[in-house]
C-alpha cells in the first residue's frame, strides 16, 4: 500500500527549497526491508565502539528529532568524532543499534549515507581542483546530474559565500574560506541530517560567525544538524539541545536550561573590593546562605548565595562593617563550562 503525504515546509528568504515537499512512503516495501521505526530521525541504542582495549563509545543511547540542532559537546577524546563516524557508517560499531530515519546503519549503510551530509573535522577538499569543481565532484557522488547538479552547485557556492571564488583553487583560500568550501561540498544534495564535526577549528572570528549563521540557516531550511565542538560558547549559541560526552559516555543530554537545572547549578555573584581583608572574607564564607565561596585575585570574591535577592544585603552589610566599599558586583549565569565542571570535576579545556 502506498501513501502520499503532502505537507508544507517553512519558506525562508533564500528561495532554497520548494514550497512543499513530498514524501512517498511505501509501507509494504519498507516492511520488507525491515524498516519499522519512523519516529526519531536519529537513534542510538546502547552503542559500543572499542579499539582493542580502549572503549571509545560506551553504551551510548541517544535520540535526535527532526529539525533539531543537536550540539555534541565534550573535550578532545571524549568520543564525539567516533560517534559521528559510527552514524555516518565510516566505522563499524561493536554492539548496539544505530538508525537514521528508520534505516539501520549496519544493514542499510548506503540508504543512511544518502541522507547525511558530513562536514569532516579536516578540510577534506581537493586543492588542485577549483571550488566549483570540488563541489561538483562530491555532488556527482551523491547522484546529482545535469541541470539539477549545476543548480545545486551554484546554490551551495552562493550559500557559503564562495560564488565569486568559484573558479579559484583552494590553494589561494584563507582557512575560513576552505572551511566554507568544506561545508559547500556537504550540502548540495540537501541532506536530511547535516553532521558538522568541529567546523570552526582554527579560523578567524568573522568566518566563525559566518559558519554559525549558516548552520542556523540550514536548520531553518529543513536540515537537522548535529554539531560537535569543544567550544562551549558555539554549542550554547546555536543548539536547541545539547549532549555532553566524556570518556565515551553521554553524561548529560537536554536543553541548556534543563541541564543546568538538573545539575542544580545556580547563578553566582562576583564581588570586588580592592582592600578586602581576610576577616571580611572569612565572615562572608561563614554566612549560612553562602553555598560556594572562592577568593580570586584583585579583591574579587565569587560566591553562590541561596535566595540571593534576599540575602545580598547581608553580604553588603559585612563589607561595610569592615569599612570596605563595593567596587563591582556582577551576576554570573551558570554555563556549560560550569556544568561540565560539576559533572566531571574537570573543565572542558582541561580535557582537551
Amino acid at each position: 500500500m502506498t501513501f502520499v503525504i503532502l505537507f508544507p515546509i517553512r519558506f525562508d528568504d533564500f528561495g532554497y527549497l520548494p514550497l512543499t515537499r513530498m514524501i512517498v512512503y511505501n509501507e509494504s516495501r519498507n516492511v520488507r526491508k525491515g524498516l519499522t521505526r519512523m519516529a526519531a530521525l536519529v537513534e542510538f541504542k546502547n552503542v559500543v565502539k572499542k579499539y582493542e582495549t580502549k572503549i571509545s563509545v560506551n553504551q551510548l543511547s541517544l535520540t535526535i528529532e527532526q529539525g533539531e540542532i543537536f550540539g555534541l559537546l565534550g573535550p578532545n577524546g571524549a568520543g564525539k568524532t567516533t560517534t559521528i563516524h559510527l552514524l555516518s557508517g565510516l566505522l563499524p560499531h561493536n554492539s548496539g543499534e544505530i538508525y537514521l530515519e528508520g534505516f539501520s546503519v549496519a544493514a542499510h549503510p548506503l540508504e543512511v549515507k544518502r541522507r547525511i551530509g558530513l562536514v569532516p573535522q579536516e578540510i577534506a577538499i581537493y586543492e588542485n581542483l577549483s571550488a566549483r569543481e570540488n563541489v561538483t565532484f562530491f555532488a556527482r557522488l551523491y547522484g546529482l546530474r545535469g541541470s539539477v547538479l549545476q543548480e545545486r552547485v551554484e546554490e551551495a557556492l552562493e550559500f557559503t559565500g564562495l560564488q565569486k571564488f568559484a573558479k579559484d583553487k583552494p590553494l589561494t583560500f584563507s582557512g575560513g574560506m576552505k572551511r566554507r568550501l568544506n561545508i559547500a561540498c556537504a550540502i548540495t544534495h540537501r541532506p536530511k541530517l547535516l553532521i558538522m564535526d568541529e567546523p570552526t577549528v582554527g579560523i578567524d572570528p568573522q568566518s566563525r560567525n559566518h559558519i554559525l549563521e549558516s548552520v542556523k540557516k540550514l536548520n531553518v531550511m529543513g536540515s537537522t544538524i548535529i554539531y560537535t565542538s569543544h567550544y562551549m560558547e558555539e554549542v550554547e549559541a546555536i543548539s536547541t539541545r545539547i549532549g555532553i560526552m566524556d570518556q565515551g559516555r553521554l553524561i548529560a543530554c537536554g536543553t541548556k536550561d534543563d541541564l543546568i537545572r538538573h545539575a542544580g547549578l545556580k547563578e553566582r555573584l562576583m564581588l570586588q573590593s580592592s582592600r578586602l581583608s581576610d576577616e571580611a572574607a572569612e565572615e562572608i564564607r561563614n554566612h549560612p546562605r553562602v553555598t560556594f565561596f572562592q577568593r580570586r585575585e584583585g579583591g574579587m570574591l565569587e560566591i553562590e548565595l541561596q535566595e540571593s535577592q534576599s540575602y545580598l544585603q547581608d553580604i553588603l552589610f559585612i563589607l561595610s562593617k569592615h569599612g570596605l566599599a563595593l567596587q563591582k558586583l556582577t551576576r554570573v549565569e551558570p554555563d556549560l563550562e560550569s556544568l561540565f565542571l560539576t559533572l566531571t570535576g574537570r573543565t572542558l579545556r582541561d580535557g582537551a
Partner: protein
Amino acid sequence: MQVFLASEPVKQRLVLRMSDSDEALQEDLRSGRADYGFSMPPDFSEQVRSGKGELNAYPGRMVERNLTAEAVINGFVQEIKIRQSAAIVTMGKAASAQSPDLSSAHTGVSPSMVHVGTLAAGGNVVFGHVSSLQYYSVAYLIMFLLFSGMSAAISLTEEREKGTLQRLYAMPVSMNAIVFGKLAGILAIAFIQAAFIVTFTKVIYGVDWGTDYGGIALICLLTSIAAVCLAVIIASFVRSRKAVELIYSMLVVMMTFFSGGMVAGLGQTVQDIGKFSINHWANEALRQMMSEGSLSGQWQAVLTLGAIAAGLVWISAFRFRKAVEV
C-alpha cells in the same frame, strides 16, 4: 676497414684496440674493459667485393656508448653500400644478378650487414637475443609501469592524510567502488604510458617490439596489476606519503638494478637475486617475444609473472582494509 677506422672523425669518437680473438673481446666487454666490440671475418674484403660481407657486433653495458659505436659502424656500413652500388652501376645487371644483397642496397632496402652478437660464454648473456636498444627499452618500459603503481600508493596515502578518503567513504558509494575506481584509473594511465613508450621507441629509435602486441599488452597488464597490488601492500603498512614514496621507489630501483635494467651483464649472483623481482620475469617475457624465442620460454616467463601478480593480489586482498581505512 683499417683506413676507415684510422680516419680523423672516427678517432675523435672512439678509442680502438685490437683484440686477439672473439672470446677475448667478449671477456673484455663482460669485465667492462671495453665498451663495444665488433669482429669481421679474415676474408671480409672478399665478401664485400662479392656483394656479401657480415660484421659481428657485440654491444656493451652502456646504452649511450653502444649508440655512439653503432653510429660509427653504421657509417662504415653505409660507405660500403655506396661502393657496392657504384659497382652495380659500373658492372650492370650481371653484378646485380650475382649479388642480391648489392641489388637490394641499390634499391634502398638495407640488408643488415651487422650481425648483433651476444656475449654468450658459459651460459652468461648480457643482452640475450635482443639488441641493446631492445634490451633497455624493455627494462625502462617495465620500470615505468612499476612506477605507475607508486602513484596508486601515493594517491591512497595522500587522500587518507588530507581526509578526502574519509569524505568519499561518507558518500553513498561503496568503499570497493571508490578504491577500485581509483586503481582502475591508475591502471588505465599505466597502459597509455606503456603504449606511448612502445610507439615512441619504435618510431624514433626503430626498436623492434616483435609482432605479438597482444602478448606485450598482457605482460604490461600483469606488471601493472603487480605494481598496484604492491602499492596497496606498502600503503597498508606505511601511513605517510613521503615514507610510501621512499619505500616504493627504493624497491622499484632495486628490482630494476638486480634484474639488469640499469646495467646489463652484472655478475651471476646479482642475476640470481634479480630472478626474485617482478622486472626480471616481465623483461624476460617481453624479450622472448621480441626475439621470437621458444614458445615454452615465453610462456614460462609469462606464467611466472602471472604467478607473482596473483600472489601480490592475494596478499593485497588481505591488507586491503588496512590500506584504505581512514
